[in-house]
């Protein structure tokens, strides 16, 4: 097994053996379930399509929050425990560390959102929605989560001190970056062209998740999420490499 596989396996086993992973998954399932009941289904009669779209809007937001929390387990958590020294004094490349930890969190995300499939399944059984729409929405949630995790990895790689405060700062920094990107969409609504297109294009949730919840699969959204993930992972790797110089 190569270094990436080794790190992925250890991380996944850590998710299963510590309460952190269970707490985040429970949070996601509980909040998305409550929102499904209160907002998507509601008390008045609705078309199943509307219910499904509302479910994706709510669940997408909860995925972002869950992934911000999940990202803390990556580099910030290692630093707080002092275990980053083991990784960085072993013959493992920084890119392998970043990729291993990222892939583990992505697998956890996949399992977590898969556990919520019973909610759209209820709509599918009791209403009239297509499987393609559900698949597109879930792909959107998955990509949105992957982008948030990558942003979280990038934010925590920038904080090089080894305290529990780093975890808190990493949380705040990730939340700040995600909020600023989303804020871009709102600013884009009231600003003039051509800047409005550029600013609003940066929003992962408002701009690049909503087509998925409508059941649309657009290449531009796939490219956006792919670019965010690549940029953040490569950036994290470069930052970790540069830390030897600090």
């Amino acid at each position: 097994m190569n270094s990436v596989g080794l790190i992925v396996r250890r991380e996944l086993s850590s998710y299963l053996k510590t309460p952190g992973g269970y707490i985040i998954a429970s949070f996601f399932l509980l909040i998305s379930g409550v929102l499904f009941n209160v907002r998507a289904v509601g008390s008045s009669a609705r078309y199943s399509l509307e219910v499904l779209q509302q479910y994706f809007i709510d669940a997408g937001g909860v995925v972002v929050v869950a992934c911000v929390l999940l990202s803390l387990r990556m580099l910030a958590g290692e630093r707080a425990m002092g275990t980053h020294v083991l990784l960085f004094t072993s013959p493992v490349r920084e890119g392998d560390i970043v990729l291993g930890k990222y892939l583990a969190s992505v697998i956890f995300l996949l399992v977590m959102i898969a556990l919520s499939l019973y909610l759209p399944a209820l709509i599918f059984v009791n209403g009239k929605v297509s499987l393609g729409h559900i698949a597109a929405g879930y792909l959107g949630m998955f990509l949105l989560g992957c982008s948030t995790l990558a942003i979280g990895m990038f934010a925590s790689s920038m904080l090089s001190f080894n305290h529990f405060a780093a975890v808190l700062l990493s949380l705040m920094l990730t939340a700040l970056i995600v909020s600023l990107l989303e804020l871009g969409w709102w600013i884009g609504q009231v600003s003039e062209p051509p800047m409005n297109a550029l600013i609003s294009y940066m929003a992962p949730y408002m701009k690049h998740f909503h087509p998925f919840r409508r059941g649309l699969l657009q290449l531009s959204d796939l490219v956006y999420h792919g670019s965010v993930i690549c940029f953040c992972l490569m950036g994290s790797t470069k930052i970790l490499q540069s830390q030897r110089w600090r």
Partner: protein
Amino acid sequence: MIVVDKVSKYYGVHPAVHNLEFRIDEGECVGFLGLNGAGKTTTLRILSCLLLPTSGRVTIKGLDAEEAPHEIRKLIGFLPDTPPLYPEMTVRDFLGFAGRLRRMEREAVERRVPEVLSSCGLEDVAQQTIATLSHGYKQRVGIAQAIVHEPKLLILDEPIQGLDPVQIVEMREMIRALRGQHTILLSSHILSEIQQTCDRILMLHEGRIAATAAEEELAGSRGKRIRVRLEVRARSVPDHSEGGPESALRTALRDVSDVLEINVSKQSERSDVWTADLSLGLDCREEVAQALVKAGFGLRSLELKSTGLEQMFLQLSHQGGEKPGTSSEEQAS
């Protein structure tokens, strides 16, 4: 094995280490001694390829630390001041993970982990999760992860930090047992620890090497000065002696040629017991005792306070690092 050539590391404008230059041969056990903030941890982190020096060059087994860090890391086992342990893993699983991370084959890990568990006294807790272990056991696991891949160079940063006296003795024995199998670099701010485990000492002060030598040489460079404290009763000292018992005590001790400094104090106003702190050029405690008895003092105790090395460490630490071999008297002159 290790060549450190004019290495400096700056954090902003603050020099953590400055112009370090030393060599360490294969199989040596070298102690880095210095107070907190002396630059020990930075030096060890540079040697373990966690940090790059701002200037200078480090080569380990002919490999440059800047150009071939991954090759060097295969040769190194590192225990930082806080052992890098995953609390949710069992000791056995963690050692297996550490071995695989250092590119060991699965078969080699299966062979080596039981050996390391045995040599570090961890067999009884092998299936326990690390979170449930005592601090002493966690430190042992820290050493075990550092040696699991049989590294040529073992770097231990403050390995006895936070251990109780029994655990310190056990840790010392464990480190002694590792000598000969690895080249060992060990840091501590506790002199006695370094004295008891290392062949050679590098004394760091404010980021610079203040002294480097084998323990005997360091002691020798100070003419083996020792510090003693004695307690005498002045009841039988003749009353007519000029200046009273204090003066008589000084006169008696001045006749002993190797007494360099005398500080005398009375224990209390009513008491006739006097305490004197002496600095001796050589260990001449018998002559001191004879001189005191001859002068009519009742010798109640004569206690060795510190050796030359201890004294030198304190001097270097307090005076900003004078060169070894230069006594305070020589400097004053």
